C-alpha cells in the first residue's frame, strides 16, 4: 500500500463479483470503530445485519437471485452479495442539506460527519438516497462510515478493506481504483459476463461516488437508485419556494379582497373608540 497523502482523493472499489459474504468487513469495521451493533435480524435469508445505519457502517447484502428453473453448468446464479457502505458522493445530498456544517469533505475527499458539531436534526437522514445514516443512541449524533478517517490520518488503509479476504473491497487513490475497475469490467465482459456493470464509476450518479461498485445486476436489484432516480434533494428548492411565493401573493390578495368585500358589521358590534385607534 502506497503512502496515503492528504489532498489526494481516496475511495473504495467494491467488486461484488468476488464477494463471498463472509462479513469480515462488518466485523473489522465494528471492531475498529468500536460500534456495538444492533440486535441481529433473522429473516428468511442469510442476512442478519438488516441495513446500513448508525451501527452498521458496512453491510453485506445477501440478495436472493436463485432462478426458478435449473441452470446448466457455469450458468448458475444463486446470491448477489455486496458489501454496502456510504458512497462518499461527490454531490453528497447529506452535505447539501446539513444546516450545521457538521458534514464536511475531508482532505482525503471523503464525506465525514463531525460528531462534536452535529446536533441531531436528522435532515441528512431525510436526504441520503442510500439510507446510510442513523442516529447513535448513546452519542445522540448522526453516524455513518467515515472511510476510517482516523486510520487514513495515521497512514493506514480502512479496516474493512484490510480485512477483506477476497479483495472484493479495494482501497486506494480514486484514479488507480478507476483503472482497476475498468480493467476488471473489461475482463468480465470478455468472459461473457455481460450483466457486469460499474455503478458510480463515472459522474452519472451524484457526480461520481468515491465508494463505487462493480455490480452483477441492475443497480435497483441492490437497492441502489438507478441513474434516472439518483436525484438531489435541492431539486425541489426552486419549485417549492416558487409555489410558496405564488401562494403568498394569492393569499395576500385574498385577504385584501376579503377586507374590501366583507359585509358591514352589525351596529351594536362596533368597536369601542378606545380600541379603534390605529398605531
Amino acid at each position: 500500500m502506497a503512502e496515503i497523502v492528504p489532498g489526494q482523493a481516496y475511495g473504495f472499489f467494491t467488486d461484488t463479483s468476488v464477494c463471498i459474504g463472509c462479513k469480515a468487513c462488518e466485523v473489522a469495521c465494528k471492531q475498529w470503530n468500536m460500534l456495538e451493533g444492533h440486535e441481529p435480524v433473522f429473516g428468511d435469508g442469510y442476512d442478519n445485519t438488516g441495513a446500513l445505519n448508525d451501527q452498521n457502517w458496512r453491510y453485506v447484502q445477501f440478495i436472493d437471485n436463485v432462478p426458478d428453473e435449473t441452470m446448466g453448468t457455469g450458468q448458475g446464479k444463486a446470491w448477489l452479495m455486496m458489501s454496502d457502505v456510504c458512497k462518499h458522493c461527490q454531490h453528497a445530498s447529506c452535505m447539501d442539506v446539513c444546516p450545521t456544517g457538521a458534514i464536511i469533505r475531508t482532505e482525503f475527499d471523503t464525506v465525514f460527519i463531525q460528531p462534536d458539531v452535529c446536533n441531531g436534526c436528522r435532515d441528512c437522514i431525510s436526504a441520503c438516497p442510500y439510507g446510510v445514516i442513523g442516529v447513535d443512541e448513546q452519542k445522540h449524533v448522526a453516524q455513518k462510515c467515515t472511510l476510517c478517517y482516523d486510520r487514513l490520518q495515521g497512514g493506514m488503509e480502512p479496516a474493512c478493506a484490510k480485512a477483506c479476504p477476497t479483495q472484493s473491497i479495494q482501497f486506494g487513490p480514486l484514479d488507480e481504483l478507476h483503472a482497476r475497475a475498468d480493467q476488471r469490467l473489461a475482463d468480465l465482459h470478455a468472459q461473457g459476463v455481460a450483466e457486469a456493470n460499474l455503478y458510480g464509476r463515472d459522474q452519472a450518479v451524484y457526480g461520481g461516488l468515491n465508494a463505487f461498485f462493480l455490480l452483477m445486476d441492475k443497480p435497483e436489484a441492490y437497492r441502489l437508485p438507478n441513474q434516472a432516480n439518483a436525484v438531489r434533494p435541492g431539486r425541489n428548492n426552486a419549485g417549492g419556494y416558487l409555489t410558496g411565493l405564488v401562494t403568498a401573493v394569492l393569499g395576500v390578495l385574498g385577504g385584501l379582497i376579503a377586507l374590501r368585500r366583507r359585509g358591514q358589521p352589525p351596529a351594536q358590534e362596533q368597536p369601542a373608540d378606545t380600541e379603534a385607534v390605529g398605531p
Partner: protein
Amino acid sequence: MTLLAQAQHFVRPPEWTWFIVPYFFLAGLAGGCYVIATLLRLWGDRGDEPAARLGFYAAFLAFLPCPVLLTLDLTQPLRFWHMLWNTTPGAAGPNFKSWSPMSVGSWVLVVFGLFVTVSFLEVLVRDRGGRSLRLLDGAFGRVWNAVGAVLGLFVAGYTGVLLAVSNQPVWSDTWALGGLFLASGLAGSAALLTLLVRYRPAARASGGMLELSERLWSLLELALLVVFVLTLVPDGTLDDAFGFPWILLWLVAFAGLLPGLGRLVSARLAVTSEGAVVAQPAAASAVVPWVVLLGVLALRAAVILSAQL
C-alpha cells in the same frame, strides 16, 4: 419532478414525528396570524384595530412553543445554536446555507421571533393605554408590520419546502407542499381568529373579513391539494400518502376545508344593490373554527407521518 413509472426511494425516515407535527401546525398559525393582523392594521379601517391586536397576540402565543419543540426534537438539544453558528474547528462562524431550507428557516425563525415579540409588546402596551412605543407609530410601524408579515408568510410555508428538499417518498415527489402549508396556515389562522373574536367584542367588527378570507384561503388550499395529488401520480407514491391509516387523517383534513368551501359554494355571498358582496354571518356555532383547525393539524400529520411510518 422526474416522469418515472415508479420512483425509487431507498432512504431511511428521519423520524420527525411528535415534536414536528405540532411545530408545523403552530408555525403555520403564528405566521398566518401575523399576516392577518398586518392586513387588518394596514389595509383595514380603524374598526379593525382590535382584531389586528388579537392577531398579534395569537401570533406570539402560537410562536412561543415553536423554538421549544424544535429544540426538543434535536437528539442534541443543547446544540440548538449550531443551526446558526458553525463550530467546525478552523471554520467557525455564522452558518447560513441558502440552499438548505432548514438553515434558512432557522434564521428566519429567529428574526420572525423578534418581530412577533416586539409586535406583541406593542399591542400589550397599547391595550393598557400606554404610549411608550412611539417608534412604532407611523411609517416605521407600518414597515415593521409589513416586514414581519413577509417573514410570517415564509414561516408558515417554508416547512413544506423543507420536506420537499429531501429524498423521502411523497415529500420529495412534489413541489406543492410549501404552498399547501401556507394556504392551510392562513385558513387555520383565520379560523383561530374567528374563534378568538368571540371573546373580544370590540374585535367582532372584523368577523366578516376573517370568515370571507378563510373561504378564499380554503379554496386556495383545495387547489394546492389537487396539485399535490397530481404531482404524486407520476412517481407512484399516492398509495404511500393516502393509504390506510393516513386516509383517516386526510378525511379530517378535508373536513376542515368543508366549512369554508361550503359557505363559498352555498351562495352566502350575496350581491347587494350596490354591487358589493356581503359575507353573511356564519352559524353561531364555535365548532366550525375548531373543525378547520383540526383539519390544519391533520393535513400536516398526514403529510409528515405517511412518508415515515
